[in-house]
């Protein structure tokens, strides 16, 4: 009996003090994905990687806006978004206190501006993403004259690029025709 009591006293209180004291999580804990919208380039890599579709994106072509959405109610805390994000805009934190009374409080949204295609002038890609790519090219040592040329390429929508390519090829074959058929 005495042995049991001394054992009990030595062990002390095993129950955690939480919620009356903070609860420290272990290192590597995968808690709430923390989103830094200022670092996001709206590249959509995370929305493709997210296995639960907690991350989604929608594009409003009329307003030229793209909306990024994260639903904590659907997230499975797998950190796939953290893995693929090129800029570190989304990182899993140690925060686990996520319960809410109102479902709308589980949403994080961010709105990004689309840049217009240089030839058809319709919005197609996030301006931040284009700027980020140019920034990368500059840091890789590309001279400014070349990056400006690349900007024209990057700010052309796939459809216009295709059309330009087709007309380039047909032009070229038209020039070549006399040589093929004498």
């Amino acid at each position, binding site marked *: 009996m005495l042995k049991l009591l001394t054992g009990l006293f030595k062990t002390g209180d095993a129950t955690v003090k*939480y919620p009356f004291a903070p609860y420290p999580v272990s290192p590597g804990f995968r808690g709430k994905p923390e989103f830094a919208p200022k670092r996001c380039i709206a590249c959509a890599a995370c929305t493709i990687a997210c296995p639960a579709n907690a991350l989604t994106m*929608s594009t409003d072509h009329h307003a030229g806006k793209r909306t990024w959405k994260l639903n904590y109610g659907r997230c499975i805390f797998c950190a796939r978004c*953290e893995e693929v994000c090129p*800029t570190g805009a989304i990182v899993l934190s140690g925060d686990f206190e996520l319960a809410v009374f109102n479902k709308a409080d589980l949403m994080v949204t961010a*709105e*990004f501006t689309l840049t217009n295609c240089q030839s058809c002038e319709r919005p197609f890609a996030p301006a*931040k993403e284009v700027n980020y790519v140019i920034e990368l090219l500059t840091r890789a040592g590309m001279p400014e004259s070349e990056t400006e040329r690349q900007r024209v390429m990057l700010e052309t929508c796939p459809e216009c690029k295709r059309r330009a390519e087709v007309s380039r090829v047909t032009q070229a074959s038209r020039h070549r025709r006399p040589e093929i058929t004498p």
Partner: protein
Amino acid sequence: MIQLDTSHGTNLVPAPGAISESEQIAKLKQTLLKDIRRSAYVFRVDCGGCNGCEIEIFAAISPLFDAERFGIKLVSSPRHADVLLYTGAMTRAMRQPAIRAYNAAPDPKIVISYGACGCTGGIFHDLYCVWGGTDPVIPVDLYIPGCPPTPAATIYAFALALGLLDQKLKARHHVEGEDENVVPIHPQIPLNLRVELEREARRMAGYRHGRIIADRFMHLLGAEEPTPFAERVQHYLDREDDPRLAEIFGKLTDIVLKR
């Protein structure tokens, strides 16, 4: 551009037999939530999850977390319950039993959606046999996200319901500002080298830890300090005292030296 799924758990087809509560009951429930002053009896309904959530609920009532110190007790019949805890996505087969459990519990009752599945359907949200979370069928008062929510997250939710703590999470919306441009991470390190380092670290340590380790390595590599790089790495490794980390750092250093 294709319009991606933005419905976020709201079903296109309303679930048959969906329940909405009367005003009087809603008022009674508010009083119960505000001023319970007694034990709360909890009945669990698993509507079709993976059972991970059940395991965490039982972890939360274990002596380590001890939800019973707040008077929270699991009961085995909905007729004894004040709180109904719905876990798992609302499957077709469990819709009717879930409604029966709801009707069997005496008013006023509090309904909690537990886990990602309970909140929105979670990873199962787009399955053919799933109506979504709990709320397409039953009115829900409290949502606990997590897959599964850890015992501490469960205790937090109970503390929130009992008014011991405040809700931390709020809806956030950001609109892109002027000139909001992003600088690449570790700008001092050439892109090719960065890709190579991240790839190797992830190959050795897995996708998340690989990235974290590569990040630390590049932080040490890019820092402008008087001490030489090798010394800084050694100092860091001595502090961490982890042979696995030392091996990965060795491989990463080889990559840097090869260039």
